């Protein structure tokens, strides 16, 4: 037996268990999501069963769970209402046809490798849309939860009816409403306080399942004690008498109408976006950090949706909450999704009788909680923390979606984001003129073997995919230096996306270091705040806009008990007597790391090269080491690249006898060759030959070490500190 199949078999028990736990959640959610869309409850279960089995067989992700999704509730509800024109069941049949067509479209998206689709949406607009979906679900289900199944209207009017709805319950004379409301509120309490109860046995069963067990148990208790069950069929889930034979079949007779096309478009759009976002989010949770093949997953989801639609089920999408439960229960491959579908099917077939006893209010409570999670105050606070403009985008998208529909909402969100970017930069040309220019350069730095990526012009949600293409092509175990200094604007979507990449890289042993953001201004201290170049403020305090690199530097300093100061400093005299800076004018230094004895110091310097029109501003990281003894003035360079500078300063080339290899590789020059030769002992030469190359320069009493004419990433700085300290101890004797 091959190794792969052995591991598969060995992991089977835990995947079956995980699939079982997930199916316990999928059962109430499947029923609830279908009910919330005004579709027959069983349609949600069909979607989960078909989705689990088909996507597990053909998908490209590893630990995701597929089934009916939250995001689609509002779209499906809209489609059923619009297509049915009053007749909800007929509307559902038309919508099934739309679901089948959207499945075909998703299949096409997969074949066209358009898994990139989700990359073109600004993060805050997506958040706003999801929050609107949450409010939409909550507004409707809240009424059902308190026993009022009759509430109808738009999201806004449903929300406005909540106080009067509560008042109605207290006034009501019907005991059924009282019981329904009590069941609903109790269920909501279970959802809210589930995570607060710390009993491991209690947590063996997920909260939604507890609700089903308790409510169904309550109805059995009633019948045992021969008390008439207070909830009539109106308040209970209805399931066809024979699940297997009474399947609905799509009605394609409206297939060429405009409203059908709109429905197909909306369903496909939301289904793809929800799935793609969930896949990306779950990839981050995967303990084995595998990379999902999103295009393959799209194809599988499309196929599953087509089958589900023909069987009378809802859309199949990748769902985030159930997937994360799956990961938490140690699922390790797609078989968990498969068993989730299979077990769900078994549950429905075995417990048909019990399912008919589930009160609608209990399912509504689960959905109210889900809706609340999508639009919780914590989310609002988090987005407001990123920056005013992100909050504006979020709120505008949210309100537009609530008052109109999802497609208009997200379109307005994209437009507003773009307009805000234009206003912030006071330039539309920056975006229009450079939109189609290839703005990303990637190469492998010859000596280090790390990848270097430079971004020009701007990087925002409209062209983030170009950067993603490059980043995707780098194995996550490599180090990447991402230079944003040539980009004058970087938006929130990119910053957040880069953080995600950076997390994945760190997890798999690589790193992404972002450099060149120090001169960009930001509106808040949030790490994902947008960054924009502040052109005419050379000495603006940078402490306010801490970049990731700066906080990493701060942590590094703390690790080694060094001091870190971010502020800009113009006292650069200690550097100016190095030959290197004879023709370069230092403007200031910043991001200083210093050890306790103040003998070693790492700093970022900004200096200019050349004059007038040929003047260039360069930022570089260097290390400055003071010694207790005096040294001859010398400079150590590679292959004499800078020799034109030093010959002018009265330097002569110094060769070390018996060290041909060293002489060939390094270019050593100094004012007093004899004294320099005394310093370059065999030990020092061995050290230099066996370590990566640094430009080393002595001005008589201090040493300057320089790696590259660009800022260094934190790992590079650590390597430099190590080199510098070793060098210092060798020179100190």
């Amino acid at each position, binding site marked *: 037996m091959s190794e792969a199949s052995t591991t598969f078999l060995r992991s089977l028990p835990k995947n079956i268990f995980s699939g079982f736990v997930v199916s316990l959640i999928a059962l109430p959610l499947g029923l609830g999501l279908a009910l919330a869309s005004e579709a027959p409850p069983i349609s949600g279960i069909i979607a989960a069963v078909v989705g689990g089995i088909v996507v597990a067989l053909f998908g490209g992700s590893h630990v995701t769970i597929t089934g009916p999704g939250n995001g689609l509730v509002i779209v499906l509800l809209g489609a059923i209402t619009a297509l049915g024109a009053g007749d909800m069941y007929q509307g559902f049949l038309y919508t099934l046809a739309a679901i089948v067509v959207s499945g075909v479209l998703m299949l096409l998206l997969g074949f066209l490798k358009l898994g990139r689709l989700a990359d073109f949406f600004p993060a805050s607009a997506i958040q706003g849309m999801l929050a609107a979906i949450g409010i939409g679900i909550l507004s409707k289900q809240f009424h059902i939860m308190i026993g009022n199944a009759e509430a109808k209207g738009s999201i806004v009017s449903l929300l406005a009816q909540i106080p009067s709805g509560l008042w109605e319950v207290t006034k009501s004379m019907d005991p059924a409403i009282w019981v329904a409301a009590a069941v609903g509120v109790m269920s909501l309490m279970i959802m809210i306080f589930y995570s607060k109860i710390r009993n491991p046995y209690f947590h063996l069963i997920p909260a939604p399942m507890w609700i089903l067990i308790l409510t169904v148990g309550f109805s059995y208790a009633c019948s045992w004690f021969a008390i008439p069950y207070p909830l009539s069929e109106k308040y209970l889930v209805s399931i066809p008498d024979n699940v297997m034979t009474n399947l609905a079949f799509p009605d394609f007779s409206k297939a060429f109408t405009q409203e059908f096309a709109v429905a197909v478009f909306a369903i496909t759009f939301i289904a793809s976006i929800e799935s793609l976002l969930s896949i990306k989010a779950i990839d981050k949770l995967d303990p084995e950090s595998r990379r999902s093949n999103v295009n393959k997953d799209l194809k599988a989801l499309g196929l599953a949706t087509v089958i589900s639609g023909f069987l009378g089920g809802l859309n199949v999408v990748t769902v985030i909450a159930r997937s994360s439960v799956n990961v938490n229960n140690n699922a390790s491959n797609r078989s968990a999704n498969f068993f989730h579908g299979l077990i769900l099917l078994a549950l429905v077939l075995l417990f048909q009788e019990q399912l008919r006893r589930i009160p609608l209010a209990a399912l509504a409570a689960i959905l109210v909680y889900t809706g609340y999670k999508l639009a919780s105050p914590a989310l609002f606070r988090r987005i407001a923390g990123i920056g005013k403009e992100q909050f504006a985008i979020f709120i505008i998208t949210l309100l537009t979606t609530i008052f109109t529909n999802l497609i208009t909402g997200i379109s307005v969100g994209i437009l507003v984001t773009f307009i805000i970017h234009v206003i912030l930069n006071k330039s539309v040309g920056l975006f229009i003129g450079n939109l189609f220019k290839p703005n990303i*350069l990637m190469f492998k730095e010859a000596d280090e073997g790390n990848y270097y990526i430079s971004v020009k012009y701007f990087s925002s949600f409209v062209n983030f995919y170009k950067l993603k*293409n490059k980043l995707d092509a780098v194995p996550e175990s490599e180090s990447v230096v991402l230079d944003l200094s040539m980009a004058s604007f970087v938006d929130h979507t990119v910053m957040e996306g880069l953080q995600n990449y950076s997390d994945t890289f760190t997890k798999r042993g690589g790193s992404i270091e972002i450099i060149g953001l120090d001169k960009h201004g930001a509106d808040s201290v949030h790490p994902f705040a947008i960054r924009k170049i502040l052109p005419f403020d050379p000495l603006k305090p940078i402490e306010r806009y801490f970049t990731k690199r700066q906080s990493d530097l701060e942590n590094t300093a703390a690790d080694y008990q060094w001091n870190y100061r971010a502020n800009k400093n113009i006292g650069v005299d200690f550097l100016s007597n190095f030959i290197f800076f004879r023709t370069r004018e230092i403007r200031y230094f910043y991001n200083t790391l210093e050890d306790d004895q103040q003998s070693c110091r790492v700093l970022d310097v900004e200096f200019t090269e050349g004059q007038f029109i040929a003047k260039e501003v360069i930022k570089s990281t260097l290390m400055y080491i003071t010694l207790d003894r005096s040294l001859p003035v010398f400079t150590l360079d590679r292959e004499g690249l800078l020799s034109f500078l030093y010959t002018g300063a009265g330097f002569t080339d110094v060769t070390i006898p018996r060290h041909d290899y060293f002489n060939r590789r390094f270019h050593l020059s100094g004012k007093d060759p004899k004294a320099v030769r005394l310093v370059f002992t065999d030990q020092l030469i061995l050290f230099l030959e066996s370590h990566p190359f640094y430009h080393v320069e002595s001005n008589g009493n201090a040493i300057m070490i320089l790696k590259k004419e660009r800022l260094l990433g934190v790992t590079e700085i650590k390597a430099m500190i190590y080199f510098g300290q070793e060098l210092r101890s060798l020179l100190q004797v």
Partner: protein
Amino acid sequence: MVQQPFKTMLFGFAFSPTLEINIMETSRLAHFFNSKLVLLHVGEKTADKAHRINGILDKIEHKDLDFEIHWETGDPVETILKASQSNDVDLLVLGAMQRENVFTFYVGSIARKLTRQVKCSVLLLIKPAQVRVPCQHIVVNGLDDPDTPTAIRCALYTANALGAKRVTIVEEIRQQEVQVTVEDDKSLRQATLRKERLKAREESRVQHILEAMPEELTSKVSIKSQSIFGKRGYSIGHYAEVIRADLLVMNAPRKSGVLDRIFPHDIEYILSDLPTDVLIIRNSS
């Protein structure tokens, strides 16, 4: 002795505020290349103009320069094109424009037309200087193209003539050549392997070109090669900017029709956003 690629240089001048700097720079280049400099003005010759240009020419550093001044009237593009043919010009020097308020450069409409239509090599200068700014680092493309050896030879020649110490030959590895779309871990491994193989192939190709170069051209400069991933013809400019090269040497595009301007490729990107001085090599033979 290595054959001198630029025997005759042509510079079309206008009486602009930068005239003096432009003349200083081109005369200096003509001196380093040891070539004859043809200065052409499209417009009427007046005593005043002649006086001004002679005044500037009196100030140039290298007095032994072999130069001629021509005065012609007519359409600037037509006239310069005609003059470049009749004088057997090998190198046409053009100045780039600077965008207002920003340190970015582009090629003006006349210069752009000339760049496309002229039959000889073109040098686009973004920062001519009154006093010499030494050229230190030259970047040249190493595309798989029949003209590439000529471009590399010219780059090496220029490096030697101007005293530049480093020449970097850039091979661009295109996504189409990698042929694998990265979708998951497996395809990523395939793509990475393929890239390594392409890189090795490109490097050995460049190595072959270098081996064919005369020793005198290669001995004094440090020659490196670098593979980059990006858009062909454009990313080399970005690279030159990132490493702050002083001159970028490129092959001329094979064709430059209307379609290329609508769907810009290769050189068109460089023309709209000059990273540094650019030398476009056209094989005139």
